[in-house]
């Protein structure tokens, strides 16, 4: 506990870096997964290759990605961009299928009536299909958020600053205080991400709550 109080600045700084490294990819990954998921739904021939193919990205070990990406991107090994790109890939891997399935869950008669009302394809996506897919996409996003928070810490092996550094510190010195602080901070962070996503989903889906109080 004293260790925690003494290193409060450190904990704060590393938590913010962790938020950045795990959170930003979540947003970018979602923005990339939306059009990919839409394509997988729009052209049925793309569904299997897209969902399976992007899903495979998730199996690439994170450490390997962190090491490989600087060579591919021309960045320095300690550049946080490497982590952002890697985490974005994982997010996309998890979300393409979710987005495709979420869009696919929009009832056929709703899509049909939207088309018949005179929605263009693009307008229909933003006005009808995307809002209705929010609950499913949100579920996928919660998995990706927790997974990101956890995987980012691996970047500590390379020395990229975030909460994972507490694990390498503690391990190197056989001193467990930083380890516990790191674990607790990670868990809290994952919970905060989850709560934010849940609240945002609630705000975006008022109709789901109204269903309960049928008149």
């Amino acid at each position: 506990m004293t260790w925690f109080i003494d290193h409060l600045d450190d904990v704060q700084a590393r938590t913010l870096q962790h938020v950045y490294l795990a959170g930003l990819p979540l947003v970018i990954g979602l923005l990339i997964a939306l059009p990919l998921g839409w394509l997988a739904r729009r052209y049925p021939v793309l569904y299997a290759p897209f969902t399976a193919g992007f899903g495979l990205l998730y199996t690439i070990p994170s450490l390997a990605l962190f090491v490989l990406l600087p060579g591919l991107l021309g960045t320095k090994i300690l550049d946080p961009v490497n982590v952002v790109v890697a985490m974005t890939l994982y997010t996309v891997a998890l979300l393409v299928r979710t987005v495709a399935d979420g869009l696919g869950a929009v009832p056929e008669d709703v899509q049909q009536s939207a088309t018949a009302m005179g929605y263009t394809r693009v307008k229909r996506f933003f006005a009808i299909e995307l809002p209705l897919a929010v609950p499913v996409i949100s579920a996928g996003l919660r998995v990706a958020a927790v997974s990101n928070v956890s995987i980012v810490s691996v970047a500590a092996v390379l020395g990229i600053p975030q909460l994972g550094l507490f694990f390498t510190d503690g391990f190197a010195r056989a001193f467990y205080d930083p380890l516990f602080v790191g674990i607790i901070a990670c868990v809290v962070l994952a919970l905060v991400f989850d709560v934010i996503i849940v609240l945002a989903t609630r705000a975006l889906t008022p109709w789901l709550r109204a269903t309960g109080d049928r008149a």
Partner: protein
Amino acid sequence: MIVFDRVTKTYPDGTVAVDELSLEAPSGKITVLVGPSGCGKTTSLRMVNRMIKPTSGTITLDGRDTSTMKEAELRRGIGYVIQHAGLFPHRTVLDNVSTVPRLLGVDRRESEKRSMDLLERVGLDPAFAKRYPAQLSGGQQQRVGVARALAADPPVMLMDEPFSAVDPVVREQLQDEFLRLQDELGKTIIFVTHDIDEAIKLGDQVAVLRVGGKLAQVAEPAYLLAHPVDDFIADFVGRDRGYRALSFQPTPRLPLAQERTVAMGEAVSGLDAEWVLVVDEANHPLGWVEPRRVQGEVTTEVLHRGGTVARASGPLRAALDAALSSPSRRGVIVDDAGALVGTVRAHEVLNAIEDADRPALDDPDHPGAATTPHASSDASA
């Protein structure tokens, strides 16, 4: 007016959904497409707003070839109602109804004002405006569906089995209100159903399609019932078509008998009659009583309500039914205000039926008699 000119839809696997369909849906009238499943009626409907593209042939809307129009614009000018309403679950009733005006660029306040009017028009309490579709019953959702289709005041409406998914009582209500609404609005409507009774009730003209997407006959309902062109149509329009055809025959002047009436609360036990009709202060019939079974005054409990009531200006079917259903064998006939004008017996109604004309075969002035669209001359309709 919507005109199908030799429209064919063939799918890549070779299935012919619609085969050389030629048909006119006159302006301001309800044209019903009816037939067994697989007859291509829904496909035909969806080709009008190009949800499905015809393989060959043309569909024109007031003379304009629909294939030359921008799809989204074409569709915004056509109201569309489907079986389960297809409401947007994430939007309130009001927002659902406002959909097309908003797409057309009408500002929010104006389109919401119009939508509120429409909700009232289709018989929905304004309190529903802020609810979501899932909070409504099936019948209410369908009313919203109709209001939404009407919101931009399109001249043309396409309706695909809009009343099939609700229970029979609600369906009947929706049908009646739909007819009343159409009386006011006079839209050009193509209505798809598999239910011949619905087709006959709603259609100004009924087009029967057979499996394989071939038009079997198109005629006014009364004509269709009287003169089916072949066994398929005869089978399809059903066994009791003779009785149902009476729905289209106005009641001629019937020999009405004056009925002895009593008021509620009056004593009837001494009356020398088997059945006596009970009426309220406005002379509206309430039901029959049997004086010999009543001790003292007439109360609601002793009223026999089995008999139906027919309007003097209504169809013969209602007059006959009133006579057949009446416990006294005397059918109750009322005026348009619902006040008693007299009673009639079944044989008297039958005499009137015997004397009435059936729709004549091959009447050249009869637009409903046409089996090919271009033979008819109702372009002015």
